């Protein structure tokens, strides 16, 4: 469930960028990593009041830089070029992070913990026989907040509507005075900020590690495709379902192949219903 929420947020990040630019951003998982790592590193020295905004800001900054790289060739580029650029970005970001912070996993104290000696223990609740850690509730709450916020943003604010216009018809959007360039940068910044937020929320559960991004990004993409690319609610539902299916197969069948589940589902979905479970036919590109 916790994992599912993270997949869902990553899927939302994919969707934001895909909706405004038509690009699949392979570096989405790295945004999550940056959020988690920056939070983890700063938490060791400062209070969360400093660490959390800094983590999200760092994510946004990286997103903006990446947008700059994608923007330059965007007009004349083939899909292949854009894919390769985002892959390159993903490799480079991960490399830089490793260069700065090393490979070891950093534990992060939970948001609402019981201060113990040396290590902060998480509060936990008993619900219907299952033990739930407080941090998991935080993850769910943040996910819900993001979902509601995004829906409202894209439906009711001027900027949100402008971003939707960019995807539907860039030329038309430009004609009515929307700066497509600015919208693209904005979408990258938003996706990166969300990713970083997801990363810092989940870091107390999974630890913060430099190479955590790749797997999260790929699985988030599975969720995005599963829900139909470009479809917010689809991606979120699919992400949560994916997390549940994964933990079920991991717990009940073979834990060794837990990580493969998402990709088998991805292949199957791509072959049988490329428009996703909840997508429309018209989404096929």
């Amino acid at each position, binding site marked *: 469930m916790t994992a599912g929420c993270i997949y869902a947020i990553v899927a939302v990040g994919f969707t934001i960028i895909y909706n405004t630019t038509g690009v*699949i951003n392979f570096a989405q998982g790295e945004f999550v990593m940056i959020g988690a790592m920056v939070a983890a590193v700063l938490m060791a020295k400062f209070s969360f009041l400093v660490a959390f905004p800094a983590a999200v800001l760092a994510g946004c900054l990286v997103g903006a830089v990446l947008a700059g790289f994608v923007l330059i060739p965007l007009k004349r580029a083939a899909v*292949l070029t854009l894919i390769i*650029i985002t892959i390159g970005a993903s*490799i480079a970001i991960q*490399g830089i992070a490793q260069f700065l912070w090393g490979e070891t996993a950093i534990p992060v104290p939970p948001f609402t913990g019981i201060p113990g000696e040396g290590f902060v223990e998480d509060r936990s609740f008993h619900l219907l026989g299952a033990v739930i850690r407080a941090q998991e509730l935080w993850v769910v709450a943040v996910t819900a907040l993001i979902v509601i916020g995004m829906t409202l943003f894209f439906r009711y604010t001027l900027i949100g509507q402008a971003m939707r216009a960019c995807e539907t018809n860039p030329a038309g959007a430009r004609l009515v005075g929307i700066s497509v360039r600015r919208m693209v940068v904005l979408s990258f910044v938003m996706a990166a900020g969300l990713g970083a937020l997801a990363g810092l929320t989940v870091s107390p559960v999974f630890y913060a590690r430099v190479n955590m991004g790749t797997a999260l990004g790929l699985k988030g993409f599975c969720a995005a*495709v599963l829900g139909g690319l470009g479809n917010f609610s689809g991606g979120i539902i699919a992400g949560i379902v994916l997390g549940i299916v994964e933990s079920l197969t991991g717990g009940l069948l073979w834990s060794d192949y837990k990580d493969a589940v998402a*990709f088998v589902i991805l292949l199957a979905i791509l*072959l049988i219903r490329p428009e996703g479970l909840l997508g429309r036919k018209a989404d096929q*590109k």
Partner: protein
Amino acid sequence: MSVAASPDSRNVSRKAVRRLDAATAAPFVIFLIVYALVPRFAADKELTMLIYIGINTMLAISLNLLMGYAGQVSLGHAAFFGLGAYTSAILTVRPIPAEVIPGLGTGLGVAAGCAVFTSLTRASGARLASAAAAMVALAWGSQAVHLHPAAVLLISAAGMAAFAAAARSGALMGGASGLTAAVVTLLCQHLLAGVLQRGGASPWSGMVAGVGFSGLVAYLLGGQVLRLKGHYLAMATLGFGVIVEIVFRQWTAVTGGSSDGIFGIPVMRAEWLGGIGRMTGVEVSPRVEYYYLVWAFVFVCLMLGVNIVRSRVGRAFRAVHGSEVAAESLGVDTSRYKVQVFVLSAGIASVAGSLYAHQAGVGYIHPSEFGFGVSAQLVVMVVVGGMASIWGALLGATTLQLIKTWLLGLEKTQHTLFGLTLTGLEPIVFGAVLIGVMIVMPQGLVRGVSDAAAAALRGTRRGRPGGSG
């Protein structure tokens, strides 16, 4: 890329060798001379590097055929590299446990059956899945009740025929694929079981088996996956690559898993190739011999690549790249060509994998050598060398290896920058190279530099008419 063939290049495929003009042949001649002489001047360290470059060149050529010429992105190419390496390593040193054999036999049998089924009926999606399910049931059932092999053959043929009739795809085809599934299943269980359990096949037969297996997988996967385009295809191949790596890591009984890997893989010998070294007056060590072996394969791949690109098939690939719809409307069977190039590409990658596994003085493979990182590096090689450039693959592989060696040297010297020790630079540099090349010269270094040079030349000519230019 023009779709129409110019008349004078029409028969290139048939008379390729005779028609190779001087400009095409010259690089090969130079290549052969350098190839023969290198061990005279290279120490063991450089030879090892050259062996890696050779293997990477083969991989880059195979990926370039797929990505650069046919325009089909693959982010899981290391999977075929790994399948080749693992198949031949397992067959040579690692006996497969007896309890895995029946399942493996069934799996292979069903895969072969599916391949026949799709090639005959072009079935896909749900129909293929149900046919596969029927074959699995048959193979499994026949094992459970210990029937006589002949009876199994008959029953499966009849069963598949019945199934095919029900699916209205022609009884003959269903029967044929069912028969294939049954035959391969039986083969694996009765004939191959000895080899699989004993291990100890020769590296050469391991390589052939690897190519066969990778080709089969590529055929099945390609038939389904290559219908996807753009992002979807990239993600599907990526997903496939990740799944294969997970299997390498987790199927400990067969692959040794991620803690051990596979040890003690024998060296692939080719003594007659060492003769080239003796002719040039070099003492032939196993490494020198292996160098000759790997680069002989590279030579074959280069020839193959250059010839395919110039042939009818190659033009079809490029047509598919240019515009699939246009190619199809001109009568090019796009889906068939796409699958063909995918299988060819997987086959070359698999040979490279076997060469990688049977290296002189290594004898060890590990799942991490065939993961997503490797697939991404292959893409870097192709991009750096230039999409749709066979010789560019050589350049790309060499450049990358040189960068790697340079970075490794830099890390050893413990330089510091802003108080940080320089380690783990490889991903940063590779990522930056990838982005930079894509933005500055999306055609790759070969094309990019030659274009820039041509432009500069034109510039000087215009600037100084009558100059030597």
